[in-house]
């Protein structure tokens, strides 16, 4: 540790970090713009100037930029030095020469870092008396609004978008006072993380376009800590509501999981909550009714004479699944996922539990100095993980860069040294992925061949794994390079997942990680899954979906309660149709209409994440609590609450004992051995600080006495929250809440999201009190038995195609695909075949291919790939127009023909 003196007071701090983050960690208010804890320092804005002194006798000192200054022992600086203060004030004054005076009507106002920093420096009187420069704004697509006149040229946007997220279509143009940040021409921002620009931008150049459509100031939002429901990573989010309507999703910092960034699916997928076709009223038969009636109907059906089974869901909370399981009995509770998915998820859990390697957090991936991705198109299956892998690219260079006197946080210098070299990132996938440009080696193969490739790497590390024969010399070279790099690394991470529905890649990933562990205890392994609570559901235990169908088919069940699950996404239509029509009663809890709700005899509206309290388990086995943002109107409520209501109605001996979320969760933690501890993920419902709840509303929340004046001039009583220690009002504890209960980031003088600094133990580190969530899974076996089976090489079949699923960040996830704003980003259905197959089959550009798989004929427009192995085909499952089929499967090629020409009016969309 180093002792430094700030304004003549001694502090003990870690050496080598930059002075700015050190001061911020110590709690000082020091203004800054271009520096960002996740982007590092470049020294562009000159806002964070402080005085530095040679020694105690030096009274004059000199100005330095604290973000560019490494902390050294015995260093003396001053923040309050008049010259430093004056300089900082002038920097704001300079920035303000061209910044509009429109705070009052600017949509960033009230959560604007520039506004905060301006107040902090004390600049308030305008001396600049000339014209301001102005810019043209650009249309940047449906997510992000562009208002260039507000720009203060901090360069953060391009440093995030280009340097951090690998985007290619946002850049900085022109020079001098005319610097412009935008695209070379108007158009949709292509990068999957574009929404982060709204939080990275310190002012209102890039703002959330969806919020703008029904704009609310930050201080007028009712907010709650939530967890993203749109992939298995469980990024922490803040969801904001006003007037009963969900309006915005923001990143909620988590040191181990999402850090400062989330993907666009997570940020913009929320509009399924506000979709016009939301199920808001209960339905019995064909009639809309109230929830009370529907639940009574269910209670009636539940009685003797009916054989009831329950089908849970990987997108429902642990509480909802557990409540259903309790209602129907554990022998009658079925996982609502395909058998293959069920098997793969359980297999992954086995590897993580019975293996020698801990699951990698996203932070582990970000800090890894070698990464192997085996089989996953991360950008589309687990986007935030892809962003982390991209950051890992520089890790292997840092030790040598540090040696030449460049600290890791000196971002521009680090990038100049690295240039366009790629780090130790290796990607083996079926098709090219957007992450490939960050990789130093890529490998393409059919799933089994990826498994073989992985096993070949593992073999070089571990004798117990047999040699893989039949690899080309070129492949052997890559295998060797990867093995060497992984062995050489200090913090290697292997990433795989279930998206290819192939066990061999997961086995190979496990083998490599375990083999590395023998030499390096820092090796980590990450699996990604298909849904937000795939892991939680699998940990809960239950029977397979096929068994549920068998039960109906065999007459062991005639009434099925399906909770937040569209069976048509997990089983073939013919099968689902048959089973559902065979049931006497089909009871469905869900938030949006789908194939399953259409077949239901009773539909109960279910709360979405925003209307629910619950707990989920992410891909690393971390149980995370999400909180209800607002009390939903109409009949909407959490499925678990509806089931507790039913429990009361039928006098269910156990359900009726549990009066609220707290009691339900306690029972869950007690009864499910693998989920033990989930009741401790967040403080209990009676949690108070100095007798006060944590308010969901900022203390500047306005309008509550008037909001409902059209109905009644008396201010209504705010809703009570019996499920958590939070309140739905602006009253309550103003300090920093427990890390799992942060509804929004705010600190005096820090209205923008940058106030997260004040919630962390150290800037960019864990939240105060530790990052939230509880890891349920830990590895337990230091020397697991390696998987020694090597799959056969993939062999194409004449007249058939080995059909595999592809995934899309926009479109593949069920709920976010219903978000209005995502629609134009969702690809149309397609089939990709290899160039070799195209030539062999004599297919031309623009043709469609008809094929039969599992008894159903598909006809899809074709795309061709030079890298796809011959005899393999890929189609995007889950995208509208592609009915479910178990993949992989052999498809029988029928015929090809010219596709109908569909013209899309691009301008029509743009003008909307």
């Amino acid at each position, binding site marked *: 540790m180093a002792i430094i003196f700030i304004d003549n007071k001694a502090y003990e701090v870690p050496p080598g970090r930059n002075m700015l983050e050190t001061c911020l960690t110590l709690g000082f208010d020091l203004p800054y713009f271009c520096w960002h804890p996740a982007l590092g320092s*470049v*020294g*562009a*804005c*000159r*806002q964070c*100037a402080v005085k530095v002194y040679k020694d105690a006798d030096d009274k004059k000192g*000199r*100005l*330095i930029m604290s973000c*560019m200054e490494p902390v050294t022992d015995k260093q003396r600086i001053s923040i309050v030095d008049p010259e430093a203060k*004056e*300089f900082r004030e*002038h*920097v704001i004054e*300079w*920035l303000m*020469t*061209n910044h509009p005076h429109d705070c009052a009507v600017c949509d960033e106002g009230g959560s604007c870092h520039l506004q905060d920093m301006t107040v902090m420096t004390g600049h308030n009187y305008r*001396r*600049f008396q*000339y014209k301001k420069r102005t810019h043209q704004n650009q249309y940047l697509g449906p997510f992000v609004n562009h208002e260039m006149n507000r720009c*203060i*040229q901090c*360069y953060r946007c391009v440093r995030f978008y280009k340097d951090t997220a690998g985007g290619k279509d946002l850049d*900085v143009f*022109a*020079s*001098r*006072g*005319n*610097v412009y940040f935008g695209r070379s021409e108007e158009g949709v921002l292509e990068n999957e993380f574009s929404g982060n620009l709204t939080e990275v931008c310190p002012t209102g150049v890039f703002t959330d376009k969806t919020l703008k459509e029904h704009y609310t100031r930050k201080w007028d939002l009712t907010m709650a800590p939530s967890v993203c429901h749109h992939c298995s990573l469980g990024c922490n989010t803040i969801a904001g509501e006003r007037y009963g309507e969900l309006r915005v999703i923001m990143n909620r910092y988590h040191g181990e999981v999402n850090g400062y960034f989330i993907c666009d699916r997570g940020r913009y997928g929320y509009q399924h909550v506000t979709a016009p076709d939301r199920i808001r009223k209960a339905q019995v038969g064909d009639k809309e009714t109230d929830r009370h009636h529907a639940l009574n109907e269910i209670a009636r059906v539940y009685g003797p004479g009916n054989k009831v089974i329950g089908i849970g869901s990987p997108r429902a909370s642990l509480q909802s699944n557990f409540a259903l399981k309790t209602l129907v009995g554990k022998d009658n509770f079925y996982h609502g996922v395909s058998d293959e998915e069920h098997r793969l998820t359980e297999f992954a859990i086995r590897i993580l539990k019975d293996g020698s390697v801990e699951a990698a957090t996203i932070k582990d991936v970000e800090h890894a100095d070698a990464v192997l991705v085996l089989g996953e198109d991360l950008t589309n299956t687990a986007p935030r993980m892809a962003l982390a892998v991209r950051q890992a690219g520089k890790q292997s260079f840092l030790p040598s*860069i540090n040696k*030449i*006197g*460049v600290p890791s946080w*000196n971002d*521009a*210098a680090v990038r*100049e*040294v*690295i*240039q366009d*070299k790629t780090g130790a990132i290796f990607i083996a996938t079926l098709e090219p992925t957007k992450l490939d440009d960050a990789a130093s080696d890529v490998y393409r193969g059919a799933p089994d061949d990826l498994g073989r490739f992985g096993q070949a790497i593992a073999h070089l590390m571990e004798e117990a794994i047999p040699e893989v024969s039949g690899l080309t010399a070129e492949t052997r070279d890559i295998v060797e390079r990867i093995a060497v790099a992984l062995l050489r690394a200090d913090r290697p991470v292997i990433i795989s997942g279930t998206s290819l529905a192939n066990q061999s890649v997961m086995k190979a990933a496990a083998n490599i990680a375990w083999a590395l562990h023998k030499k390096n205890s820092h090796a980590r392994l990450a699996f990604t899954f298909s849904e937000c609570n795939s892991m939680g559901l699998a940990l809960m235990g239950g029977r397979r979906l096929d068994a549920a169908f068998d039960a109906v088919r065999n007459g062991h069940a005639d009434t099925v309660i399906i909770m937040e699950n569209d069976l048509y996404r997990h089983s073939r239509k013919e099968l689902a149709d048959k089973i559902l029509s065979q049931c006497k009663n089909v009871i469905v809890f869900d938030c949006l209409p789908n194939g399953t709700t259409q077949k239901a005899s009773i539909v109960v509206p279910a709360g979405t994440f925003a209307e629910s309290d619950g707990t989920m388990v992410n891909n690393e086995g971390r149980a995370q609590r999400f909180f209800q943002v607002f009390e939903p109107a109409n009949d909407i409520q959490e499925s678990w609450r509806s089931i507790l209501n039913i429990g009361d109605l039928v006098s269910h001996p156990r359900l009726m004992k549990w009066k609220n979320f707290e009691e339900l969760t306690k029972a869950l933690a007690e009864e499910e051995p693998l989920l033990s501890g989930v009741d401790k993920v967040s403080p209990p419902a009676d949690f108070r600080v100095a007798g006060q709840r944590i308010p969901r509303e900022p203390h500047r929340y306005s309008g509550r006495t008037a909001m409902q004046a059209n109905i009644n001039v008396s201010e209504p009583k705010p809703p009570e929250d019996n499920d958590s220690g939070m309140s739905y009002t602006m009253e309550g504890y103003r300090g920093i809440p427990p890390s799992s209960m942060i509804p929004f980031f705010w600190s005096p003088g820090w209205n923008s999201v940058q106030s997260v600094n004040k919630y962390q133990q150290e800037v960019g580190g864990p939240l105060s009190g530790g990052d939230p969530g509880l890891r349920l899974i830990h590895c337990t076996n230091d020397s697991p038995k390696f998987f020694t089976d090597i799959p056969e090489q993939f062999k194409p079949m004449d007249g058939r195609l080995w059909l595999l699923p592809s995934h899309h960040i926009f479109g593949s996830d069920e709920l976010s695909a219903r978000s209005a704003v995502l629609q134009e980003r969702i690809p149309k259905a397609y089939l990709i075949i290899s160039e070799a197959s195209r030539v062999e089959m004599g297919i031309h550009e623009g043709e469609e291919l008809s094929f039969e798989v599992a008894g159903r004929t598909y006809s899809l427009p074709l795309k061709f790939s030079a890298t796809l192995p011959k005899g393999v085909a890929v189609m995007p499952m889950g995208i509208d127009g592609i009915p479910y089929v178990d993949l992989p499967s052999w498809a029988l090629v029928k015929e090809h023909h010219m596709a109908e020409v569909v013209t899309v009016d691009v301008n029509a969309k743009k003008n909307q």
Partner: protein
Amino acid sequence: MDTVMEKPLTEHIRPDGKPLSLKEYEAVGGYSALRKVLGGMAPKDVQLVVKDSNLRGRGGAGFLTALKWSFVPLDAPKPKYLIANADEMEPGTFKDRILLESTPHQLIEGMILAAFAIQASESFVFLRWAYKVAAHAIEKAIHEAYDAGYLGNNILKSGFDLDMHLHTGVGRYMCGEETALLNSLEGKRATPRAKPPFPQISGLFGRPTIVNNVETLCNIPHIVNKGSDWFKRLSRTEDSGTKIYGVSGKVKRPGAWELPMGVTMRELIEEYAGGMQDGLRFRGALPGGASTDFLVEEHLDVRMDYAGVAAAGSRLGTGTLVVLDDHTCPVGFVKNLEHFFAQESCGFCTPCREGLPWVEKTLQSIEDGKGREKDIDLLHMHTRYLGPGNTFCALAPGAMEPLQSALKYFKSDFDQHIHDHRCPYHAIPATLEHA
């Protein structure tokens, strides 16, 4: 007084100014230094002789050339780079142009020697876009040097390899800053880089790189040939060698001359430039290009070397005087300069990007007769806070040097503009004259 005035850099320039061909250059001893070095000297030997010569960079900062070279790790793997900074864009400066246009082989030989001294395998001439004549000359000379075996693989059968490329910039002052030059050469925006890492360790494409000024490099063959003591004797002062000085402004014979380091400003103006034009009086001069502080009459006998000019409160810079006369408005003069600097700001750091246009607008406003007393405070604020260290690179601090000294030496002119609401140097409009 010097008995014999040697002009090693310029003595062989043809009377018509046309570039010396390879043959002509060889005939006057060209490439003999290269033969000497490749005939048995070690890279360290070359560094040593240059170190002993005390050669300082002629680009403006005056850093010791051999010291700069010594930071390059000699054993670093290939590639390493040597770059001639020929992006001469300092207003009032045209000394490198003479060397580039007339003796391109002298530069090339200097570059090969410097490249050998740091064991670089690749070299670039980063040339100002507007120097079309020089571009042609250098391109031809590089071809000739390749054909003669002075460039390419196994130069003069010594085992030393060096490639050389001509890169013409697009006309940005910023590219004269060595790290912005590197970014530009890499095809990136011409913004400066943070140091560390210094280019000597991590420069072009992340590799060890030396960037030297044209005049600096042209001195190397002569130092190698004639030795460090000879080089020191060329000068009248501590700072060794000759210097190509220039004078522009309303003097009788503006031009550039190679002279012993340390001639006085008075000699330059009165002897070489022929004195002020008739009817004009000397009011001051920027001694080393636009980004240096004004010196005035009391400084006329200041020796034009690094220490001498610094002691007078300015910088030697490029050693090219820009003279201000008593019929030219100092406010307009400085406004013109600030316009240039504001235009040439790369836009990376706030004080430069936002401060310089404000300074320019304020000066324009004063010049237009709309100035206010407070404007002077505003200008002083900028000269103070756009100083070294406060901005990312030296562009804005350089831009403040003529302004701060103008505010000091020509205060009355500023005051008069503000008081009279007009520029006293402009002809008085007829309407006002009769008022």
